[in-house]
């Protein structure tokens, strides 16, 4: 390795991390700032966190976000697993291919399409329509992930189970699901995070009744940033780092199981 590459690569990585983390660090620091004017430092305080935990609007938004995320994880995992398992040797063997478009189409096109669909059938916008949208995105992740893991499974397990007299349902519950559980957990976590973070679908399909956390943050930033948003962002950052930790430890375990 030449001198150039010896210094070039590490400095590139350093710059990248600085680029990624300087804004986040400044944001976290300023959430402890005791000043109405968001961008001027005065002194350390926790008042925005107190205000954050006292705000009912934020708690409602969080509650909505959690309801939507949990339901879409549950629905997309259940439907995705059933599809992958039962389409295995039927006429619909290739039906998993139908789900590959969900991630390839720009999200805004999907959102606009769903909005016109709900408007056409005069379905009122709210939590239900949000769950419908997020579950669709979730299926786009769950079906390919679960399908690729299911293909990798040794066919002899399912064959042995069926030969020994188990029904298909028993085989699914007692053989396939335990073998797939790491992949299912990872996919579920992914869908959960994506649903919590999703802005575009929520913005179009939520209507005025159901406000999720990202929509709340969006309207707050638009109205002129308040330090409460910084406090909320810091809390959200903490939450995502915990989830990433779970996710990465899970991947290590998943590899151990495969070996």
């Amino acid at each position, binding site marked *: 390795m030449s001198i150039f590459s010896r210094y070039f*690569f590490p400095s590139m990585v350093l710059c990248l991390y600085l680029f990624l983390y300087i804004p*986040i660090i400044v944001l976290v620091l300023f959430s402890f700032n005791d000043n109405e004017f968001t961008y001027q430092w005065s002194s350390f305080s926790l008042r925005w966190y107190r205000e954050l935990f006292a705000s009912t609007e934020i708690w409602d938004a969080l509650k909505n976000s959690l309801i939507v995320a949990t339901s879409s994880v549950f629905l997309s995992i259940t439907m995705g697993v059933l599809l992958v398992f039962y389409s295995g040797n039927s006429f619909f063997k290739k039906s998993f291919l*139908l789900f590959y478009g969900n991630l390839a189409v720009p999200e805004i096109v999907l959102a606009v*399409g769903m909005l016109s669909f709900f408007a056409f059938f005069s379905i009122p916008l709210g939590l239900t329509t949000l769950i419908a949208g997020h579950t669709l995105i979730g299926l786009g992740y769950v079906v390919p992930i679960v399908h690729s893991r299911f293909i990798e499974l040794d066919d002899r397990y399912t064959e042995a189970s069926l030969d020994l007299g188990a029904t298909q349902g028993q085989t699914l519950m007692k053989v396939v699901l335990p073998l797939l559980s790491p992949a299912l957990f990872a996919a579920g976590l992914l869908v959960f995070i994506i649903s919590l973070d999703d802005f575009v679908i929520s913005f179009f399909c939520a209507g005025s009744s159901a406000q999720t956390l990202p929509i709340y943050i*969006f309207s707050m930033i638009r109205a002129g940033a308040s330090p409460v948003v910084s406090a909320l962002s810091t809390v959200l950052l903490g939450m995502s780092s915990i989830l990433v930790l779970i996710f990465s430890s899970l991947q290590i375990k998943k590899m151990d199981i495969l070996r």
Partner: protein
Amino acid sequence: MKQTDFKGAITKEVSFFMITPALLWQVLFFYIPLTMIVGASFMYQSGISWQHYSSLLELPYFKIITRSLLFALINAFVCLIFAYPAAYFLARNVKKWKNILLFSLMLPFWTNILVQIYAWFFVLERNGLCNTLLMKLGLISEPLHLMNSSLTILIVMAYCYLPFMILPLYSNLEKLDSRLIESSYDLGANSWQTFFNVTLPLSWSGIKTGFFLVFVPSFGEFVIPALMGGSKYMFAGSLISHYFLTVHDTSQGAAFTCLSGVVLLTIAIVLNWYFSKKAYASRGQ
């Protein structure tokens, strides 16, 4: 024998019922809405016509689509140029701290996009970090106006999409067989020759994945321009949301959505063809 046939019939029926929910969901909320968008774009005063499309054949719309395309392409290139060396180094040279470095790469990727955008306000605002530093250093005497510019939009877009480029490149470069690189050095190639003749050709598939993961969503991006650019710059995503949410002109909006979708698809096919050709050529050598 008869019993097995019977059982087989039952499981086929059961199978059909079990896969129906997912298929139904997909058809109801994906295929029907997309078809409705295409259909609505041809609806004009309760008849079928090209009216909505012909009214889009004007310079402003052309400009908006070109601007979105340009920003998406530049964004993908910028991400590629910054992500590649970093991904290469992380995948091949780092042994210590690897998990922590990867964890901190993934963290922004899992963070809410609005939090990421909001964080940039602290850097770029009038009294933000950038202006404060420059003033302290004496490089400028008055705060610069950094918000609401196309450069700002590009920086924040690159910030939000960078992880989408790094992760596929990283997993591609990590799998690269180091014996190929060693033998290239052994055969007398210098590091530039090795890079352009061995490493780069073998990483085309990772580059392709990353490029599409950045390019396609940033074409439809409307949150970043809406928050960072004010209303100064119109993008394809902003115009779509304007049609559907502000003026409620569904069929005109649908026509614009279809038009930009077709443009995006065409560019994506051309790019895909180019990347596949590159990848194929590198395998042929």
